[in-house]
């Protein structure tokens, strides 16, 4: 992880760490904070606790998003301080709706100049974001759509349950925008719970979300999504999401947390060890195996 972030994330980059509640790569965010990257534009549909940590860690000057909160809990206090009070400095924002953000990635991944959607009608969102533009259908004067611009992150970081050494990555459970963000990114880091043999991937090609051909680095990092979750591997650590509300309310408490859990730890392995194995055991779900399908052999 240290090498992947050092080589591929540069000051001033637009960085997308995607994952909709599921598969959010906190370990990558922590490494970016540890390496004291600066002036990043952070893109994510739902900034979540990871971007609150990164903003507090001083790596970001701008945020692109569609829903800004601690899901199921409340606010992201470090980000709110930057926006509401410019404390310790202002944070530029550029906001969309979820569908708008999704289609920005789709346009970026498809090499399209814009993407039309039926949204934003009679909403104030386009008034505060001039990049959301009304357009009349070229085929039907009566149909108005809004278009959003492509999003092509300099670096997309996506987590997957498993990948092979070439970066062919398989995901199950909530898919979020992992695939779209990966194809849209100029540089791509795939982080996974397990690196597996290529034959495991080839056994179930329908489950491959991201082909290695668009991937620049593969990092095996178990529990890298904590306190987010990886379907079938570990549950969301909801106690931490609740605790973050308390930690982030007070800048000093937050700084102490960053020092203890990010700066004073060298790697995510140290983070795993600091939580302790009992913590990870408690987050492990029961089994719910998928049935098998027969792809057939056509030799």
């Amino acid at each position, binding site marked *: 992880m240290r090498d992947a972030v050092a080589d591929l994330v540069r000051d001033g980059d637009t960085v997308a760490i995607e994952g909709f*509640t*599921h598969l959010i790569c906190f370990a990558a965010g922590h490494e970016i904070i540890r390496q004291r990257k600066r002036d990043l534009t952070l893109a994510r549909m739902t900034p979540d606790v990871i971007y609150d940590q990164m903003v507090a860690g001083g790596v970001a000057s701008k945020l692109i998003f569609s829903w800004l909160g601690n899901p199921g809990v409340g606010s992201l206090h470090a980000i709110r301080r930057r926006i509401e009070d410019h404390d310790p400095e202002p944070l530029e924002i550029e906001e969309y*709706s979820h*569908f708008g953000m999704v*289609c920005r990635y789709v346009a970026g991944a498809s090499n399209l100049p814009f993407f039309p959607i*039926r949204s934003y009608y009679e909403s104030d969102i386009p008034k505060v974001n001039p990049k959301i533009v009304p357009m009349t259908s070229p085929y039907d004067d009566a149909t108005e759509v809004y278009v959003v611009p492509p999003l092509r992150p300099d670096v997309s970081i996506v987590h997957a349950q498993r990948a092979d050494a070439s970066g062919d990555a398989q995901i199950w459970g909530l898919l979020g925008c992992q695939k*779209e963000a990966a194809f849209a990114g100029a540089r791509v880091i795939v982080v996974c719970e397990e690196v597996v043999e290529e034959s495991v991937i080839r056994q179930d090609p329908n489950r491959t979300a991201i082909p290695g051909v668009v991937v620049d680095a593969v990092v095996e990092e178990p529990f890298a999504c904590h306190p987010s979750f990886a379907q079938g591997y570990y549950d969301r650590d909801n106690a931490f999401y609740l605790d973050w509300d308390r930690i982030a309310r007070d800048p000093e408490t937050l700084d102490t947390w960053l020092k203890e859990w990010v700066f004073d730890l060298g790697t995510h392995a140290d983070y795993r060890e600091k939580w302790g194995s009992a913590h990870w055991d408690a987050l492990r779900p029961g089994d719910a195996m998928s049935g098998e399908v027969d792809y057939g052999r056509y030799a």
Partner: protein
Amino acid sequence: MNATAERDLGYSRTEMMIAASARRLEGAKNCFVGVGLPNIVCNLAQRTVARDLQLVYESGVFGARPERLPLSIGDPTLATGATAITSMFELFAFYLQAGLIDVAFLGGAQIDRFGNLNTTVIGPYDTPKVRLPGSGGACEIAIHARHILVIMRQAKRSFVDRLDFRTSPGHSGDPASDAARGWHGTGPTSVVTDLGTYGFDDSTGEMTLMTLHQGMTLDDVHANMGWEPKVSPDLGQTLEPTTEELRLIREELDPTGAHTR
């Protein structure tokens, strides 16, 4: 609205809101669910008035069968056992934008008399007093879901004469122009608060008080509303939660009382 009154009634204000909201899903098929109260409402409706209800989550789940109360709209319990998990593009494009969603729940920090909602900001956008989460999927949900149900606790600061920001459109105030929009969505159909239930007037699109919950008065409504509310000439009393509804809420849906007490 105090604790004594709740003890006398035998159920909480929140349980009243849940029961009244669940009944509004009678016969519904595909419902876009949020976390917290809407989630309990949908699960109650599935067990009572809407047996065929498919729970749809913007995280990309169609036909969820959660085995525990989801902690967020992206809880892993929503994935296991679902009918389908889609990409978020498919969920918003093929399911929502194409018109498959019958009903959706929305809420907000502010609502106006026409059901427009603000989830973006309190105060000016560039110098916010309180920065709220923003749209998420709400803007397109408001436009495409055929009916919108709103569950909100009522207060003067949230039921306002003028929104600070319009995140999601409701009725325009002119039903003829609303009909000409060509949207799948017909705007908010009802609002359930801790004081009563509201519909929207066919000729003006304005929120109209239809029923008061047991123990509530018009004075309570006036005291918690930022405009002079329209009141139905047939103003009635909200049917109280039944023993069976309360049993389902307390024993199956929220046994710890985290959301309902």
